């Protein structure tokens, strides 16, 4: 284990540590984050009312919309001179959301990811290929920091160029692969087609950033002859490494010395009893730059507090089974229908959004995104070339807004099926 004392800490002790940290965090945020103070004041709460984890349920929730409303740095709890890095991800509308890290935040992040690598059997002798995107997305640099921390040889390939990824795996002797599960499956199929499976030294696969099934896990494991593990993370809380499976492959350990998870009823906000399925809510205990209290992840899952066969005491979360909002995860990227709506409004030439439908599917293990758009008078011209121009314009704007490609189809007015007068906006055909 990377940090045995913490990872196997008896739960009573862990709770004490969480309580101490929570009290401090609430006090600090009350002083530094105006939006948090305002919410506390509205509830008639003072930092002194929070004496430990048992008082957590009294605290106000925070939401993704808070990140948009306080964009870019309004929720940061330190002076910007303390912030050494920012990352970003998509928000519910065109604007991205920004998170920040102090030097210490990066240390904690690396420590969490180092625990993850270590529990799955990676060490300083490992060759870790990181095929998560590098850049504003937390995946690449997040996994990178942890791999470096354990002293592994890091191979920062980032995404794309599959043939070169595979050549790199062969030539550099990659033993650990980090990527999205769908990309891993794609790699596995290419490797099979190239007939180079025997040349690989791959043993461990660490896959996350999008939903996948147990069947997919088995297929990847068989095709690559490796063990495949699931990880969970979100930029708002930290990035990859918030939670990760151990070798038992029976739920993902959430590092509770840094994060307190709760499961709530998404409708009423009530905390649900142990083991119940509901919306996952996180409180960060050690984050300095961008702390959050009771952040609504919108992921639906359950928590398992039983001690794990691996010896770790930290709670395990089950794979999220869905969302309590309309966010889609397509090729690992968060996509909100409202982002697509915004683009269509801009090109419609009228002050109304054209009727549209989003169709998500998985073809050859790759997510596809199709957007059907009903033509409006303003969009229809007599010339093929001007219709093609409109189509290309929508495609380009979607790409720059969403960060992924979408196939746009212009369709007849009123041809998109409506149920009870309201069009069904999203059809997700993936079987996850």
């Amino acid at each position, binding site marked *: 284990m990377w940090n045995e004392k913490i990872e196997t800490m008896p739960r009573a002790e862990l709770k004490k540590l969480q309580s101490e940290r929570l009290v401090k965090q609430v006090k600090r945020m009350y002083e530094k984050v105006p939006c948090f103070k305002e919410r506390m004041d509205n509830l008639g709460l003072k930092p002194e009312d929070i004496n430990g984890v048992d008082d957590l349920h009294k605290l106000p929730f925070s939401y993704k919309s808070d990140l948009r409303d306080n964009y870019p740095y309004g929720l940061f709890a330190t002076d910007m001179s303390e912030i050494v890095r920012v990352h970003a991800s998509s928000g519910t509308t065109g604007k991205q959301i920004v998170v920040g890290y102090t030097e210490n935040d990066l240390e904690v992040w690396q420590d969490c990811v180092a625990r993850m690598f270590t529990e799955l059997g990676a060490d300083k002798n490992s060759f870790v290929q990181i095929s998560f995107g590098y850049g504003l997305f937390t995946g690449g640099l997040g996994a990178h920091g942890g791999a470096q921390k354990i002293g592994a040889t890091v191979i920062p390939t980032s995404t794309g160029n599959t043939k070169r990824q595979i050549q790199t795996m062969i030539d550099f002797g990659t033993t650990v692969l980090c990527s999205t599960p769908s990309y891993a499956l794609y790699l596995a199929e290419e490797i099979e087609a190239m007939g180079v499976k025997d040349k690989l030294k791959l043993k461990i696969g660490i896959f996350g950033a999008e939903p996948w099934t147990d069947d997919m896990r088995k297929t990847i494991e068989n095709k690559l002859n490796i063990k495949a593990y699931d990880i969970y993370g979100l930029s708002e809380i930290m990035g990859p490494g918030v939670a990760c499976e151990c070798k038992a492959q029976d739920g993902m350990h959430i590092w509770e010395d840094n994060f307190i998870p709760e499961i709530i009823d998404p409708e009423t906000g009530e905390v649900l009893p142990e083991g119940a399925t509901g919306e996952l809510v996180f409180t960060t205990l050690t984050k300095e730059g961008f702390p959050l209290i009771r952040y609504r992840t919108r992921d639906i899952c359950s928590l398992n507090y039983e001690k794990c066969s691996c010896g770790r005491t930290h709670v395990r979360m089950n794979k999220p089974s869905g969302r309590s909002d309309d966010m889609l995860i397509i090729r690992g990227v968060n996509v909100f229908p409202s982002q697509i709506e915004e683009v269509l409004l801009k090109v419609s030439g009228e002050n109304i959004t054209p009727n549209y439908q989003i169709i998500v599917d998985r073809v050859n293990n790759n997510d596809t995104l199709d957007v059907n758009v009903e033509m409006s008078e303003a969009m229809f011209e*007599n*010339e093929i070339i001007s219709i093609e121009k409109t189509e290309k314009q929508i495609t380009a704007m979607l790409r720059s807004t969403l960060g992924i490609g979408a196939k746009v189809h212009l369709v007849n007015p009123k041809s998109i099926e409506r149920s009870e007068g309201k069009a069904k906006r999203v059809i997700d055909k993936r079987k996850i």
Partner: protein
Amino acid sequence: MKQLSIFVENKFGRAYSIIDTLSANNINISALSIADTSEYGIMRLIVDDCEKAKAILKENGIMVKITDVLAIPMGNTPGELSKLLKIFTDSMISVEYMYAFVSKKNDGAVLVTKTNDTENSISALKKMGISPLNHEDLF
């Protein structure tokens, strides 16, 4: 000359449903051409009652526009189309699209075309003694 331009999704039965709608409402089609891509096409029609046809199609959820095009009379003999196109070429006029039909009324062929410059096209034609047809000339 007025032309109907209709947006046609590339879907089975689409052309039939458009034409059937027109037929059910007694619209007579004199000429038809389709410009297509892999995803959709534009159907261009010359019909006897443009405004009525447009209203009917719109009612049926079909995207339609009326556009002005040139309808140029020509003889139904070899070399006539070539002569017309030479007039455009000599005046540096480009053709965007064209199609032709034979009309009972003027007893000859009619070239329907859209060029990059309608005004210049008309004056070039007139110089050669050719007058584009109006809707009334045909129906």
